[in-house]
């Protein structure tokens, strides 16, 4: 199991980035009770047979590392959801893309902490490859309420680049400011 839910989401988004997606959408909906996550891509997708195999930690497509026999991304999702009374689902069609849905019970003591969401978004927005990405966060709890929704292309346009440490530092400042509650 990953240390935080954000780490798990980063890991699963990496799969989309490597599936030749043109657009990836990562959406996080949070209440006091649960966190629902959607990761949608229009990448190469998986056949039902491959999807079935992907839940086995001793399966990998063997493209990235020819002699490797393990792939832990999806098994970690299944393990985390099933050990903490959460739920998960993967819908995939070859040539059309994949949608991963997960719901985590935040009241379950075994659910890992959510982690730092602006850091997660910065991380996935700076993944290699130029695909479009949409990040959405909606939080509606007793203590805080906010939402934001951005496209990677708009952020790239505003910053002029996402490559340098300077760009990435500004990007984090920007994302953190979206969660500011001190009044607009």
């Amino acid at each position, binding site marked *: 199991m*990953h*240390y935080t839910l*954000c*780490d798990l989401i*980063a*890991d699963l988004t*990496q799969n989309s980035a*490597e599936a030749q997606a043109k657009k990836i959408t990562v959406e996080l909906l949070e209440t006091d009770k649960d966190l629902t996550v959607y990761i949608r891509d229009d990448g190469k997708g998986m056949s039902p047979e491959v999807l079935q195999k992907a839940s086995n930690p001793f399966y990998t497509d063997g493209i*990235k*590392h020819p002699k490797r026999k393990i*792939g*832990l*991304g999806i098994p*970690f999702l299944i393990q985390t959801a099933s050990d903490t009374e959460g739920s998960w689902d993967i819908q995939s069609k070859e040539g059309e893309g994949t949608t991963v849905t997960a719901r985590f019970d935040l009241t379950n003591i075994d659910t890992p902490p959510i982690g730092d969401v602006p*850091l*997660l978004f910065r*991380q996935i927005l*700076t*993944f*290699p490859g130029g695909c479009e990405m949409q990040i959405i966060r909606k939080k509606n709890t007793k203590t805080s309420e906010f939402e934001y929704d*951005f496209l990677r292309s*708009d*952020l790239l*346009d*505003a*910053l*002029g680049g996402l*490559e*340098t*440490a*300077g*760009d*990435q*530092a*500004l990007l*984090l*400042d*920007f994302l*953190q*400011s*979206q969660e*500011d509650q*001190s*009044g*607009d």
Partner: protein
Amino acid sequence: MAKMSLEELRKLRGEMQGEIKRREADGKSIQIIVGMGTCGIAAGAKDTLDSFISVLKDKGIADTAIIRQTGCMGMCANEPTVEVIVPDMPKVIYGNVTAEVAKEVVEKHILGKTLLDKQILDRPSIDIINK
């Protein structure tokens, strides 16, 4: 910090442009590539990445350093792994780069031009791989 709009972000970026152009004239850039496979993430590579960015910013060299992420580099036992490319220095892959080690890499390798001997991972030479 009050909520920033995309326009404000663009403006903030614009204010820094002069500074960046001056540095670009040097024509040499630093590259830091952090392994972000399942293994890297599990070992805390996100903290490493964050540490590099904030230390580079603190040292005032954030705009000369390119930060990239890559998948698993195949050395999962030594995650987080980081490749550091600095002009006039050998390309090096460091292992077990925690947030603290990342700070050391910036201070000693990038600024001090000295290798961190204990963190270097061996890479098989090309003649071995070809056999």
